[in-house]
Structure formats: structure tokens, C-alpha cells
């Protein structure tokens, strides 16, 4: 809990380019709202995407969940907004308990490293394990449609932010 509030103080003192963070409810340190600025030179450029970071009581031993509130069309974001990237997944039960541990959640990750991964995911979708199969298919097979849908989300996000 001390760690979570310290991270928020630190982020507000030394803001990281591309996002800002705050609490949804001032009395609940475990629920954050972040605003992600669509990374330049990507389809998401110009968008303002709101998302929630929901921390478990065991943070940082367990990862937070991240959920976009603003509508967003992306192969690795479920239609309900849930972000699906490997660093937010706990290491699974494989034979040794550490296979691919490097890609999964580690207690040394911070809100900053999570959001940097999310921003890089926006720039560079991973279509090997899509969370939104339709978006992944469109991204691969009919990129023009994909671009149009993303552009609509960007526009909508700007309107919502005004």
C-alpha cells in the first residue's frame, strides 16, 4: 500500500511522457485512472484514452489489471477494455515455474514499466495472442478497415475529453 501511494507521488513529481495518472476515488489507493496519449506516428496518435489500473492487495507480488474505459480497437485489448499483455500475466504453472518468466509479471515492474509496455503495444500490436480476434484479423487482412475503426475511436476519445 505504501508502495502504491509512493508510485503515484513519484509519477506526479516526475511525469512520464505519454500518460498521466491519478486515483479514481481519493479514498481508494488500489484503483487508479490513467490517461494515455495516443503515441505519435501510430494510428492512435491524437487520441486520449482513459483506462483504469486495478491493483490487488498483494501488489507487487501480483500484477494489477488494466482496463480501457474509452472505446479502443486493438488486437491486444478485449472489447470490454481489458488489456492483455504478457507482463500483466502471472507466471503460470509450468514444470519449473519460471519458463518465460522474463515476459511475465515480476514484482520489479512498476506503473511506469506497465504503461510503457502498453504504449509500445499500441504502436506495435502482437497478433500471435490476440484478445480481440476480430481486430487482429482485420489488422492482418483488411488494414484499411482496421485503420478506419481506430480513427473513429481516436475521434470519439477526443470528443469525450472535451
Amino acid at each position, binding site marked *: 500500500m*505504501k*508502495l502504491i501511494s*509512493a*508510485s503515484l507521488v513519484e509519477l506526479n513529481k516526475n511525469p512520464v511522457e505519454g500518460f498521466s495518472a491519478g486515483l479514481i476515488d481519493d479514498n481508494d489507493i488500489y484503483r487508479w485512472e490513467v490517461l494515455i496519449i495516443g503515441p505519435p506516428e501510430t494510428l492512435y496518435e491524437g487520441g486520449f484514452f482513459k483506462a483504469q489500473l486495478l491493483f490487488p492487495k498483494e501488489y*507487487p*507480488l*501480483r500484477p494489477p489489471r488494466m482496463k480501457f474505459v474509452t472505446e479502443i480497437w486493438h488486437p491486444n485489448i478485449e472489447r470490454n477494455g481489458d488489456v492483455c499483455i504478457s507482463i500483466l500475466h*502471472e*507466471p*503460470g*504453472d509450468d514444470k*519449473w*515455474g*519460471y519458463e518465460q*518468466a*522474463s515476459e511475465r*509479471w*515480476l*514484482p*520489479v515492474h*512498476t506503473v511506469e514499466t506497465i504503461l510503457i509496455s502498453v504504449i509500445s503495444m499500441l504502436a506495435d500490436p502482437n497478433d500471435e495472442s490476440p484478445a480481440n480476434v476480430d481486430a487482429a484479423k482485420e489488422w492482418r487482412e483488411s488494414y484499411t478497415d482496421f485503420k478506419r475503426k481506430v480513427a473513429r475511436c481516436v475521434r470519439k476519445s477526443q470528443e469525450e475529453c472535451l
Partner: protein
Amino acid sequence: MGNCLKGSAADDISLLRGSESAGDSVSDHLGLPPPYREAVPVYYPSPNISRPVNQLTEEEQVKIAKRMGLIQHLPTGSYDGCKKNRECVICMVEFLVGDNVRYLPCMHIYHVNCIDDWLMRSFTCPSCMEPVDAALLTSYEAS
């Protein structure tokens, strides 16, 4: 947290006694049974599975017992002010001279409390992802 655990351990004993004497005395003392049992320690047979100690399979109990044994083999010490490791990257708090720290075979150091909780879930160094058991075995073979 520690205090809570101690307090509820006493409760467990009274519950045991109660069950011997048909349970009447228990309800007299405690009223309704507690809605949840925070008292039972929870273990992580794998990082994404948590289970109260009384629901572990035999295999999981063995795995956890081995893990606990191995963790106890990792050296501990008190932080000596070494400039190379300034903070515990799990809790992100700077080490203070005298803090109880644990050394992993890869020479990364953490607060004992911080790293032990993690190692009980995943037996890897969170900084370099080196599997701790493999490193332990190599160090045994070498010596």
C-alpha cells in the same frame, strides 16, 4: 498482519476445544461463527493459484515444503551500506544499514520479507529472472 495472525491462532485453538465439547461453549463465547477464515495461512503452489493450507494436495505440500527449505539455504545478512545495491526493487524503499536482507545466488539482494514472499510464488530472481534452484544446485556442485 503478524498480530492478526497471532490473534486468530488463539481462536483456532478455542475452536478445536469447542468441537470436543459439542460446540455449545463455542457459540456462547463467540456468537455466530466467523463468516470468513483469515486465520488459515494461504500458500501458492504456483504463482496464480492460492490455496489455504488445509486444501493443499500432498504433492503441493511437498513442493512448498521443499521450497521453504531451499529458501532457508539462501544466505541472509544485515545491509552494510554497500553502494551497489541502494534499494530493494520490490518495495522500492532504500535499504537502511542493518536491514535484514537476503542474497540470491545471482548476487541480487532484497529485504528478506519482500523476497521470501515472492520466492514462495516463483523461484526466480525478479531482477535477472535467474532460476534460484538451478543456481543453488550449481553452487552445490561447485563446492
